[in-house]
C-alpha cells in the first residue's frame, strides 16, 4: 500500500464530505420549519432588546419564577484556571457583567472547583444563581445527602439554588436513580429541608437516556444537556430532548456549545461567536460555558452582551455547514466514546479509569 494512495483517498474523502455538505442544503425548508416551531416556545430567548444595554440578557428559569443570565459560568473550568486569584477575578467580572448563573459539581477536580467558587462568591452569594451536582453515579440517597453537605461547606453557603444529578450517562442510570432509596429521594428531601430550591439532572451521552429520566415524571425544574450546531444533526438533544423539556415547562440548560473543550473552534469549523450564538439562540434558559481564563471570559461576555438571537435561516445554514462533519460524531466524542466520562462514574459502573481506557 503506497503512501500516495492513502493521501489521495484522504483528500478525496474530504472533498466528498464538503460536497455532501453542499448537497445537504436541499433539506433546508424542513429544517427552517422545525426552527420556527421551537422558537415559538414560551421560554424562548428574550434577546438583546429586553436586556439592559451592555449587560448579559436574562431569561426565566422554566416555571420556577426566577430569572437567570443567558450565559452561565461552567464550574469544571473554574478549577482549571491557573489560580484561586484568577478564578476569583473571573467570577467577579462575570457578576459585574450580569452573569448570575454558576455551575459546578461535587467531583470537579476533587472539590477544588467548588472550593474556589465558594471563595470567589464570599460576600456575593446573593448575586448568584448557584448550582452544583451530586455524584452518586447509581448509589443511594445517603451518599447523595453527604455529598450535599460537603458541597455546601465548600461553596460556603447554607443553600443551593439548583441541585442536579451529575453525569446521567450509563444506560441503567435512570433505573438506579429511581430505585427505592435512590438519589431521587435525596433531591426531594433536600428540597423539603430548604437546602436546595430547585432540582434537575445532567448528562452528555444519549438523548434516549434523558428521555427515560423524563419519563419518570419526577418534578425536575432543570435539565442540562449538550446543545451546539453539531448536536443539531447527530444523536440530537436539540431535536429529541429540548422540545420535550420545553413542553413540560422545565428549564433547559445548554452546555458544550463549542464541543466541550473548544474542539469545534480549534479545528477551524466554527468561530466562538457562531458556536455560542447558535447555542444561545435555542429555547434554553442559559448556556453554560467553561471559561478557564479572563481572555476566554472577555470573549464570551462580549458575545453575550451584544447577543441577538440568530434568525432561523442563519441557524439552518450553520447546521448544514456542520452536518457532514457532525455525521460521525468526531466533534462530539462525549456522546460515542468514554472521552469525558468521569472516573468516579466509571468506578461505580465497573469501568476502567480514564487512564486505562482513555476513550
Amino acid at each position, binding site marked *: 500500500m503506497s*503512501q500516495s494512495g492513502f493521501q489521495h*483517498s*484522504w483528500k478525496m474523502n474530504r472533498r*466528498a464530505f464538503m460536497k455532501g455538505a453542499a448537497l445537504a442544503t436541499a433539506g433546508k425548508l424542513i429544517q427552517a420549519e422545525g426552527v420556527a416551531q421551537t422558537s415559538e416556545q414560551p421560554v424562548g430567548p428574550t434577546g438583546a432588546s429586553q436586556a439592559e444595554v451592555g449587560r448579559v440578557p436574562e431569561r426565566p428559569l422554566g416555571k420556577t419564577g426566577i430569572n437567570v443570565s443567558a450565559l452561565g459560568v461552567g464550574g469544571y473550568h473554574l478549577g482549571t484556571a491557573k489560580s484561586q486569584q484568577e478564578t476569583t477575578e473571573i467570577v467577579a467580572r462575570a457578576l459585574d457583567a450580569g452573569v448570575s448563573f454558576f455551575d459546578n459539581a461535587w467531583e470537579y477536580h476533587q472539590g477544588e472547583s467548588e472550593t474556589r467558587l465558594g471563595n470567589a462568591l464570599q460576600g456575593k452569594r446573593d448575586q448568584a444563581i448557584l448550582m452544583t451536582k451530586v455524584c452518586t453515579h447509581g448509589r443511594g440517597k445517603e451518599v447523595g445527602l453527604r455529598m450535599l453537605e460537603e458541597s455546601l461547606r465548600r461553596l460556603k453557603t447554607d443553600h443551593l439554588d439548583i441541585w442536579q444529578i451529575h453525569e446521567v450517562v450509563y*444506560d441503567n442510570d435512570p433505573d438506579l436513580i429511581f430505585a427505592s432509596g435512590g438519589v431521587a429521594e435525596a433531591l426531594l428531601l433536600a428540597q423539603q429541608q430548604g437546602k436546595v430550591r430547585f432540582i434537575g439532572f445532567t448528562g452528555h451521552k444519549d438523548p434516549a437516556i434523558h428521555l427515560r429520566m423524563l419519563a419518570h415524571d419526577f418534578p425536575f425544574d432543570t435539565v442540562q444537556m449538550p446543545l451546539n450546531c453539531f448536536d443539531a444533526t447527530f444523536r440530537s438533544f436539540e431535536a429529541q430532548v429540548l422540545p420535550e423539556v420545553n413542553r413540560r415547562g422545565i428549564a433547559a440548560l445548554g452546555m458544550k456549545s463549542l464541543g466541550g473543550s473548544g474542539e469545534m473552534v480549534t479545528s477551524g469549523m466554527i468561530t466562538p461567536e457562531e458556536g455560542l450564538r447558535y447555542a444561545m439562540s435555542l429555547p434554553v434558559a442559559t448556556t453554560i460555558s467553561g471559561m478557564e481564563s479572563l481572555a476566554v471570559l472577555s470573549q464570551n461576555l462580549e458575545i453575550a452582551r451584544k447577543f441577538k438571537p440568530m434568525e432561523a435561516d442563519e441557524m439552518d445554514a450553520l447546521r448544514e455547514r456542520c452536518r457532514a462533519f457532525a455525521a460521525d460524531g*468526531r466533534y462530539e466524542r462525549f456522546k*460515542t466514546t*468514554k472521552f469525558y466520562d468521569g472516573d468516579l462514574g466509571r468506578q461505580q459502573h465497573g*469501568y476502567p479509569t480514564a487512564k486505562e481506557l482513555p*476513550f
Partner: protein
Amino acid sequence: MPSIPVRNFGKHGDQISALGLGGHHLGNAEDEQTAVQIVHEAVDGGVTFFDNCWEYNRGKSENWMGKGLKGRRDRVFLMTKVCTHGRDASLATLMLEESLRRLQTDHLDLWQIHGVCFDNDPELFIRPKGAAEALELAKQQGKVRYVGFSGHKDPAIHLKMLATGFPFDAVQMPLNAFDATFHSFETQVLPELNRRGIAALGMKPFSGQGAPLQNGLLTPDEALRYAMSLPVVTTITGMDKIDVLHQNLQIAQNFRPMTPEEMEVLRQRCRPVAADGRFEHYKGSLQFDNPEARLAHGFPLDAQQMEVKEMLKESENTGRPYPEMKS
C-alpha cells in the same frame, strides 16, 4: 475424535464449521511458528472458517494465516475484511490485492467491510465511488465469492447498512450473553438476518477480551455454548495460544445446543452487570475501533494501541496525516 458441527452458509450450499478462528488474535501469537501451528491444529480439529482483516496487526495476521494455510487453502472457507472506513472503492481494491498476496491465494470465500462503527458509515459505503462498488467488482472478477460487513458498535448502524439494500451474503456482529440485554445485536439484528437468509457470523463470545471469564461470571464453556446456540452460521473467536485453541476445540467438538431455558438463565445471571455495558466496551468506547477507522473519520489515535505503535514505526506511513493523539 468427534468433529465440530457444520452449518449452511446462509442461502448458499457451503458448509461452515460452527467455530471460526479469529484473525486478530492469530497475530498476537508468540511467534510465527506458533501461529502456523494454531492454524494447522485448527484445520485438523475441524475448523473450516477463518477470519481475518487487512488492518489486523498491520498485516501480520494475514501473513501468518497465509503461511499456516499453505497447502490447506482448499480445506477452508477464508474470509478477510477491507478497511476503507468510508473511503473510496479504489482504495478497497488496492487493499484486496494486498490481502490476497499476504494470504497466498487467488480468491477469498468472503470479503467483508470492516469496522462499520460510525453513524455515517452506511452512507459513505453506498455513495457513488464508495466501497460498495469495490465489493461488486471483486465479485464479478471472481476474486471473492461472497461479500458482507462487520461491526461491533451499534445495532442501529447494522440495520442502516441492511437498509441500503446492498445484497450482502454475510453480516458479522458481537453475540454473547451480555449483548443479549445491552444495545443488543441478538434481539435487533440477528432476527432480521435470519429473515433475509443472510449468513449471521457471531464474534466476541467472551466479550472481546475475556473479562467476564476472568471475573468468574461465566465459564468458557457457558460463554461459547451460549453464542454457538444462537441461530448463527459460525462463532468467531480469537485464539492466540495452543491451549486456548484446545479448550475451544473441545467445547465445539462436544457441542450440544443450550435449551431456551438454559439460555434464559444465563442471560438473567449476566443482566445486572450487562446493563451499563461494562463488559462490552466495544459498544461505547473508541478502544476497539481500529486506527484506520479513526484516521478515516478524523478521530484521535491511541498511542498505546499496538497497531498505532507499529504504524509509527513503519516508514511507509511517514507523512500521513495523523490527527490528535492521546498518549
